[in-house]
């Protein structure tokens, strides 16, 4: 050990001693602060006197959210409505003088679903021919058949489904979970987002934002379409001066230098936290590439997820990666299907028959594979898989062959930890125009997922601008009917 470090440590030692007499060792306090920030250690307490989180025994430890960007057409996939076949081509009239409006178009005639429906599994769930693989899994799923949104516009609806508010700037679902429950692994973030390699969804990174929560809770994006899937994990390729030796020696000297500075500035846990942050960063540099490397998976597994077919490989990779991340301690993984914009997503305004099948084909086999794989590995025991979209589509046509946005009713499902498999909750009207019976709002859905994670959505709050903000705003009730 060189003399300067000796001196630094000597000073540190005496000051540590001094401060520990004041109560609480410095190292302990600093680490606690960093861990509290990144939630590596004990769960968070929401306020003095409140019990620590989770609020109750959780059923789920991980969440994988599959998000179909654009508004998946419920009546062409799950919400089987014979009325639409019977009334095809007629003027859409829900009766009793109810106003019929569409967000972007003049309401057209009733549009018949173009795909054959059959009942599947023990539970007899109706699924259209577009999702043959998922249809074999229906006995593992709990369906929300009558979800409703507050809006028919992508931006606000995506924000609502992701953050519980129509406006930008609120923490998203994964950020809340990260904030409440923290990391499981020291080496990987709590909340990871896997966007469609063709582009980010509507609202871009706004959907993964930590809002007014500290920035470490925002989704860490892993973009498998990029040469460096995680930003700033490594120095840029052009920085030739950075060699492994320079980095290794440099980190050692930096830590020593920072320790000496800490000794001069005792009692500030942020300074100690930064020293630890470099150690944790170094660990993440090692563990993240291992987690994202799919080469180690068996040929059978790769085939299961559809990595052998150009149709399914892209989405399949994200599903397989999600499983690997969950196995390594990531708490919340959000997988996107579809970029923002008018095409290559679930926003099928122009032609349902042409635009919907490719989206289904790309995701059907990988999603079924994910469910089967998680189940086979026992991971579904404590992993919740949820399938969402921001709203549904209209029973009448837009321009003859497409469907416009419909926040009135849409479908979501969940599977895995704590879920009562095989149930279908709620019902839309005869046309799948509005949710009418046992309606699930976006707030109810969020409340239910939080409940499964051991969180009471009413007690998970953060004070911001004069209000105790929640993921569920001032709404939401747990849908007990889908709980196992």
């Amino acid at each position, binding site marked *: 050990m060189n003399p300067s470090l000796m001196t630094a440590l000597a000073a540190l030692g005496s000051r540590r001693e001094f401060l520990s007499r004041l109560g609480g060792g410095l190292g302990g306090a600093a680490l606690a602060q960093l861990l509290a920030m990144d939630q590596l250690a004990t769960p968070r307490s929401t306020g003095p006197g409140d019990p620590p989180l989770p609020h109750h025994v959780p059923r789920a430890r991980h969440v994988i959210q599959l998000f179909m960007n654009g508004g998946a057409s419920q009546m062409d996939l799950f919400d089987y409505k014979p009325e639409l076949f019977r009334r095809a081509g007629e003027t859409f009239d829900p009766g009793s003088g109810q106003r019929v409006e569409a967000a972007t178009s003049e309401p057209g005639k009733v549009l018949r679903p173009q795909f054959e429906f059959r009942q599947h599994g023990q539970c007899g769930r109706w699924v259209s021919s577009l999702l043959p693989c998922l249809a074999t899994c229906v006995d593992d799923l709990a369906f929300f058949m009558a979800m409703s949104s507050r809006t028919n516009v992508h931006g606000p609806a995506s924000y609502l489904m992701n953050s519980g508010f129509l406006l930008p700037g609120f923490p998203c679902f994964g950020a809340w979970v990260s904030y409440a429950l923290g990391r499981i692994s020291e080496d990987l973030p709590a909340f990871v987002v896997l966007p469609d390699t063709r582009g980010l969804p509507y609202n871009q990174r706004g959907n993964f934002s930590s809002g007014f929560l500290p920035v470490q809770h925002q989704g860490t994006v892993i973009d498998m379409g990029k040469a460096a899937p995680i930003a700033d994990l490594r120095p840029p390729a*052009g920085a030739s001066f950075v060699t492994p030796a320079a980095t290794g020696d440099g980190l050692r000297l930096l830590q020593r230098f920072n320790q000496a500075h800490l000794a001069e500035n005792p009692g500030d846990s942020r300074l100690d936290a930064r020293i630890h942050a470099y150690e944790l960063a170094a660990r*993440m540099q090692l563990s993240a590439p291992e987690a994202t490397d799919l080469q180690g998976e068996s040929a059978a597994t790769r085939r299961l997820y559809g990595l052998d077919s150009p149709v399914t490989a892209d989405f399949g990779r994200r599903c397989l990666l999600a499983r690997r991340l969950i196995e390594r301690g990531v708490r919340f993984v959000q997988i996107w299907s579809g970029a923002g914009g008018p095409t290559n997503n679930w926003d099928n305004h122009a032609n349902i028959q042409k635009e919907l099948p490719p989206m289904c084909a790309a995701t059907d086999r990988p999603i079924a594979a994910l469910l089967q794989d998680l189940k086979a590995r026992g991971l579904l025991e404590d992993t919740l898989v949820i399938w969402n979209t921001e709203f549904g589509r209209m029973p009448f046509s837009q321009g003859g062959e497409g469907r416009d946005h419909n926040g009135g009713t849409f479908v979501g499902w969940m599977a895995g930890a704590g879920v009562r498999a095989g149930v279908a909750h709620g019902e839309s009207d005869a046309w799948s125009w509005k949710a009418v019976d046992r309606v699930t709002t976006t707030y109810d859905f969020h409340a239910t997922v939080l409940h499964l994670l051991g969180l009471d959505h009413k007690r998970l709050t953060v004070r911001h601008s004069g209000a105790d903000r929640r993921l569920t705003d001032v709404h939401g009730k747990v849908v007990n009917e889908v709980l196992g």
Partner: protein
Amino acid sequence: MKWIAALLLAVVLPGQAATAVPSQAWWSLQPLVRPPVPNGPAHPIDAFLADRLRQEGLTPTAAADRRTLARRLWFDLVGLPPTPEELEGFLRDPSPLAYEQLVQRLLDSPRHGERQARHWMDVVHFAETHGHDQDRIREHAWPYRDYLIASFNADKPYAQFVAEQVAGDALFPDAPPAYVALGFLAAGPWDESSLRDIREDTLDREIARYLDRDDIVTTVMQTFTSMTVQCARCHDHKFDPISQSDYYALQAVFAGVGRGNRRYDPDSATHQRRSELAEHRTAVERGDAATLFDEGAQRTVAEWERHGVGEIAWRVLKPDVFVSATGATLTRQPDDSFLASGRHGPTDTYTFTALSPLPHPTAVRLEVLSDDSLPMHGPGREPNGNMHLSEFQVLAFEPGSTVARRIGLRHPSADFDQSGWTIAHALDGKDETAWGIFPEVGKRHEAVFEIAGPVDLREGTRLTLVLRQLHGGHCIGRLRFSVTDVPAPVQVCGEEVRQVLATPELHRSLAQRVGLARHVLLAAIDAEIAALPPPALVYCGANDFEPDGSHVPVREPRVVHLLHRGEITRPEKTAQPGALGCVTGLPARFDLPQPMDEGARRAALARWLTAPDNPLTWRSIVNRVWQQHFGSGLVATPNDFGRMGGTPSHPGLLDWLAVWFRDDAHGSQKQLHRLIVTSAAYRRAAFFPASEPTAAAASFGAATAADADDRLLWRFHPRRLDAEQVRDAILQMSGRLDLRMGGPSDRMFDLQPGIHVTPLVDYGKFELDSAAGSRRSVYRFLFRTLPDPFLDALDCPAGDQLTPLRNAGVTVQQALVLWNNAFIARHCEHLAARLAREAPELADQVQRAFALTLGRRASDEELHDFLAYAREHGLANLARLLFNSNEFLFVN
């Protein structure tokens, strides 16, 4: 439990008029009274603080050493560290007033306004894109940023600063900056899909309007009064005396405001002339008799008629080449017009070429004609009979030449303009705007374009007319061209004017004379307006802005209803413009002589906000400024002075400062900064010196135990540099900082068209060494949904939420970014190059690196370590360590 106490109070005490909760009971609503300064230190701030410290038995730390203090002050007042030369200059300054003089120099520096503007941009959530699914770039948002910088540098009195941002156009109509100030109202996100693109008759559109006003109301009231009025949107405020009726009264204030690009003249004289012309035009348009029959006006009319400009001899062009770009069939008709049929694509460009029948044409006329073969009889091919002409161009080919010469066109006029689709759009160079004629379909229309300047066409010159029609199938169905050589002005006469001209002067009715005068005068005024220098644009909240599709200004404020539980489907009574009932002595509802005057509503609110008797406004701003210097305000919740917020740690000091700032400093923020940073409290050390005897350590320990958060300000609380301070400091240290001020923002990313509206933004592809990468971060382009990952990791807000106080966390992500980001890597190389340039020996280079980045010399031990490291791994790696050091990242 504060809120329980609040509820109890609400029950026990008699209520104010507006709500059940008594307003006087809460500290922030109490009238401002200047408390006496306690006996003690001479500086009033220190007197108040010492009083408390004495009561609590705490001993403050000693004064910080000058080197530490200098770095603190520089970062605080200008957002940059001192250069080694500036620092040494200050340290060597023997003057007893060296510190005070330094404070003054820094406050006078243009860098100070840049720093203050960035604070303000956080508070008002300024960014330069819309921030929803259609995150479109606002090309003209930056003038507001420059307004802020200029205002802070000019030390604009606070009341004026507030009033300009809320109602500058109404209160200071003669001052161009007052229009730019309205960028404040439009600083936040805007939902383009809901407010522009979805159908206008939907509930979603109406919901979006309420939410849009909610953002404006929230921004105004949080920023200036630190009250959380937005909590009263669905019900009366649960904790503060703010009723739902108050909230919707504030919505009503902004009921005529839309966000968009507003024209303004940066030059005062032009601004003045344009205002006069606009006023004159309004009077003429209104048919104001005094204006129309004024002697000068009548002379103009007579002149116009005498020159025979009223009757224009048009020569019809006979094109021999005519092409549709997308394959529509164009067929010549007997009257030399052309009829389109057959293929009908979403867009088309027609090109006609004809011999010019005149050597000196002064204008070109386009007639769009009705035809029974067209939908609704035309003149367009769209099912509703409409047409949209996006751009019109005329080219000239000299005989034998294959090179075209563009003929400049100006002063376009048409006999009819569709609302929002005026003839001017056919010449504005923008593909997305156009001239349309809806709903006047089934009729002939004409547009006339003057040729700019005299042209001299050799015989045999051919004219090519290009009609770009790019708007969703709105192609022209039948059309014809003519030229004339009568002297300018050449304007279209509507049917009405033509009839007047056909009537002998003595037989003209009053209405006909009015119509004629109006026509002539409007053309003359418009010509003069067109000759003014082109106006600039600012993206702002206004009652007048450039229409954007279906998002257009409204003539008078919209009706705002109180919404039961905030539900759009449950409107209750109509809201009247007003503010908060809980501020005593100020009107809760505005008594306006002309309630439908949009600007008057905002002007009334501006007066309410800036009233000397408004205790919220003055407490709010002194608390914000205090927070900048101490890291935390006297009230720790800068945007919430209500019961869910904090209470002042030093109520007397807060009130004293508020009154002093209002009355003695007359709202001068620079004086307030000076007052604060010259206090002993600001100059305290963060720690006891390492060499200090045990007594100092013991009192430090006791104070830490009693007040670890330093609410009583017994020490200086070290601060992590914020995102901009980090980036700007690194630019300066590596010798790259470019101090050019103002203008369009620097886009520190590669920009490509996206799939839909939102572009593709790649920060990784930015050329770091380009000029756009070297200015201060306040000039950085701010993309809401795609923030810069480097600054994001350092807690730079993205402009989605009002950010009165940034997070300043320490995270693993942040360590990764500072260690690996391309900006850091590249600037390590720049700093290394600078060191190599400026010092000959490695040891000197290491010392220079310490001086530049940390503002001090390396100790012998440090020099030993870092020298060894630099020898082994080079100066760039050395720079990387220093940029990642805690000592660099924190200010003591």
